[in-house]
Each structure stands twice: as C-alpha cells, then as structure tokens.
C-alpha cells in the first residue's frame, strides 16, 4: 500500500513556491524539534525508572537468550504455519461451498463464513481450552491454539479466495469450455489458479493476522515466543526490556510480511482487489 501512496501525494501539492518552501522549512524544523523532544522524554523516562541499567539489557548479549527466544519463535512459527495451512484448506472448502450450485451448501457455507468472521479468536480459544475438555476432547496445547486461530482465519480466507475467483474474466472460463474442458477442470485448471494469483497479497496479509493471533498461545500454555519471553523475564527479572524486544520481533516479522505482500501486489495489480 505504501508504495501506491506516492501517487496521491504527488498531485496533492503543487511544486512549492518560495513562500511555501519557507513554510515547509519551518514546519520541518519544528517537527524535528518536537520529535526529538518526544524521543528524549521516552529515553528520560527509561532513565528515571532505572530501566536503562545493564542488568536489564546485558542478557541480550548472550547467545542463550537468543537461542531461547528463537526456540519460542519456532513454536510461534509452527502454530502459524499449521494454522495457515488449516485455514487455507478450510477456507478453500468454504469458498467452494459458497459458490456451489446447491442452495443448501451455499447457505451452510455462507453461515460458517459469517460465524468465523464475526467471532473473536479468543472466544474460539476459550471454546477449545475451557469447553472442549468438558466433552472429553483432550487436545494437545499445540492444537488448542492452532485450531481456533485457523478457524478464525478460515472465513476471511474463503472470502478472499472468492474475490479472486470472481475477478477472473468470464472469457477465461468460456474459452476453456469452448476447448471442450469439463466444469471441474475448467475451475481448477483455469479459473482458480488465476484467481489465486490475484489474492496472494491478501492471503499474506491474512498470515500476518494468524501470526498475531498466535500470541494468545499463553492462554493454553503453549510455549511460543511470548511464553518464552515470560520465562526469560522471571529468570533475569527484566520485564520491560524483554517485552519490548519481543514486541519488536513481532513487529519486524509482520512488517516484512506486509512489505512482501505490498511488493507482490505491485507486481500483479488487478483492479477491484484491495489488500487489507
């Protein structure tokens, strides 16, 4: 998205004249001062609270710290990958149901899509964490976090895939039919692969959401990045620094995924499809 932003910025302002240039110069100077003051205030707050002390930061110079966080991150990634895979499979099925020719199947899929899109991930997690065991459904912690996260994403994936399929020009299917292809193979060999390509960026954005949702793993006691951060905190008695570093890791990973999605979107731009 941020790459496309340049267009509106370019036309919104005319090339500045001398007066405007002076005004922009003043605004730039003032805003730099304000931002520096703000940053200084943050650092000062850290200093006053004694949070800049080496005791809180030296642990990050240790290999073991990073190995431990890395292991947590691996746990996060395992959940994210599994949940994405399940969400994709479920989303694909829901999408097929949603566009099926049978009214009942359509209604059923639509309802499921609305339900998974309209309920918070946490509620699904509580379902698997608190309720499922009451019925004797004993899942390992991994699935207790993976399944609800996947279910939460499935509806969105279905809608994203459907928007991709809808964006494929009708002529494509018509051409395939005129070549004698059958309904099923027209869809899976011609229409779906093209539609899928259109929505790759949106699907990557959905992976970001899945990754964010995995942070609820602490609810079910699964050791992910967040959980391992907690362990580090109790070992080193360094809460603020560890949580800060953890948050930055999450932000960086998601930022990179977001950039990737923007980049792919820029490469195969299709009108009518926006990435979220």
């Amino acid at each position, binding site marked *: 998205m941020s790459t496309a932003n340049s267009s509106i910025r370019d036309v919104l302002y*005319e*090339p*500045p*004249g*001398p*007066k*405007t240039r002076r005004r922009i110069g003043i605004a730039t100077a003032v805003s730099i001062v304000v931002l520096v003051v703000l940053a200084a205030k943050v650092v000062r707050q850290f200093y006053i609270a004694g949070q800049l002390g080496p005791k809180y930061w030296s642990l990050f110079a240790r290999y073991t710290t990073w190995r431990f966080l890395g292991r947590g991150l691996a746990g996060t990634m395992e959940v994210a990958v599994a949940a994405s895979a399940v969400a994709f499979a479920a989303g694909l099925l829901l999408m097929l149901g949603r566009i099926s020719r049978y009214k009942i199947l359509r209604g059923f899929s639509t309802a499921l899509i609305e339900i998974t899109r309209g309920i918070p991930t946490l509620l699904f997690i509580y379902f698997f964490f608190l309720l499922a065991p009451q019925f004797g459904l004993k899942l390992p912690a991994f699935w207790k976090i993976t399944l609800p996260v996947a279910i939460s994403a499935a509806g969105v994936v279905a809608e994203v895939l459907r928007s991709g399929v809808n964006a494929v020009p009708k002529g494509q299917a018509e051409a395939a039919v005129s070549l004698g292809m059958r309904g099923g193979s027209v869809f899976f060999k011609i229409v779906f692969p093209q539609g899928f390509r259109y929505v790759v960026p949106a699907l990557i954005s959905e992976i970001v959401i899945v990754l964010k949702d995995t942070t609820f793993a602490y609810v079910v006691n699964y050791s992910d990045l967040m959980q391992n951060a907690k362990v580090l905190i109790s070992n080193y008695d360094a809460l603020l620094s560890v949580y800060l570093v953890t948050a930055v890791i999450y932000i960086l990973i998601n930022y990179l995924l977001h950039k990737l999605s923007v980049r792919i979107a820029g490469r195969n731009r299709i009108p009518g499809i926006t990435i979220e």
Partner: protein
Amino acid sequence: MAQEQKRADAARQVPVIELRHIDKYFGSLHVLKDVNLSVQRGEVVVIIGPSGSGKSTLCRTINRLETIDAGEIIIDGAVMPEEGKMLAKLRSEIGMVFQSFNLFEHKSILDNVTIAPRDVLRVPRKEAQEEAMRLLERVGVADQAHKVPAQLSGGQKQRVAIARSLAMHPKAILFDEPTSALDPEMIGEVLDVMTELAGEGMTMVIVTHEMNFARRVADRVIFMDGGSILEENTPQEFFSAPRSQRARDFLNSLGDRER
C-alpha cells in the same frame, strides 16, 4: 459613447493571456523553448503540432498547472505568481477543459457545475443552480443534471466540463485536446458547442488534432514542434501555404485522413 469605445479599445490592447519567454524542462528535456504568445480578447487560437511537440504542455502552462523554469505568465495584465491566493484567483479567471474530462465523480452533474462558483466565488446556492441549469441547457445536457458523471457518455461529460468552466465566467477557456478521448461519433457534439462559443466571442486557446475544426473556427493557428512555436498564421494561409518546412511535413503526414 466615444469614451466607452476608447476604453474598450484600450482593454483590447491588453492581451487576456500573455506568455513571455517561457522555458520549461522535464529533467534534461527542454520541452518549452523561449515561448512567447499573446491572445487578445475574443480571439480563438488553435495550437497544432505533432505529438510530443509541447503543445499540451504549453496549454497547461497558461494556468500554471505545469511549473515553468523561466518566463512570465500574464493574465489580463496581472502577473501570475508561483503560489498563493493570487494564483488561485487568476486560475479561476481562466477556464480549462481537459482531454479526460476530469469531472468530480462523487458529485451530480449539477453540483459539478455549481461547486466552484459557490465555494470560490461565493455565489448563493440558488443563483448558482439557476445559472448552472442555464449553462447545462446551453450545452444540451440539462436533462442529465441529477445524474453522476459515470452515467454519462464521453461527449456528454465533456459538454458538462465546458459548462463547468463557463460557470466561472472565465476571461478565456483553455481546451487541452478536448476530443481526443472521445469515440468518433461524439466528437461532433463537443465541437459544435465549441464552435458556438467561438461564435459568441469567447476567448479560446485550443489544442486539437481536428484540422477541419481548426480551419473553421481559428482566428490564428499556432504550429509547434520540438518545444518551439515555429509558425503563427491565419488558418487560411497555414492550411493552404504553410511557411515552415516542418509544418508542411506535418500537414502532409496527416494525408487524406484529415484533408
């Protein structure tokens, strides 16, 4: 009476549009080379030339939609500044009709015509609407007043764009290839409106490829190539006996297509 005549004569001597020594670069490309142009009140000036000759850029330069690197633009005696309220005011005195219409897509046809008078000139709403309806009537799209641009044909849109310009009571209107984006069958309806305007004494600067139209309505033809004005001439002379070799080549290259 005599005095009034005198004043009118004096006014006639101040050109509505005057460009002095305009230079413009796109990076290292010299797109306007020391261009001088003056347009008198009531004059219809048609700018023609091959694509890439700088004619569109010149047209857009007149109301400073393009920046210039050197020179002066003078609108009815007032120098057009680089920025600020005066720039906006002088722009409001010069209408502009674009190749791609550029109607405000979220507003009804009527609102497209009234928005600038109301917000820029502070004309009361009712007055602006009555005037807008008169103008839409005049360009033949009054029955579309309550639709939005997307519901109109290209020709209709361009006529609305002309009405939108007229609503500001401009001293001159610039037309930047007004028919180039139109289907052939719609070109006529737009040119008819423009011909009518010319007949009513509107000052116009027109960039176009429509040679028949140019011959018919132009008081003066300007031929541009390579960022320079190579020839200023009457349409009769220009089309029958162009002075410059490049103009001759250009007219020949049009061949029978434009005659």
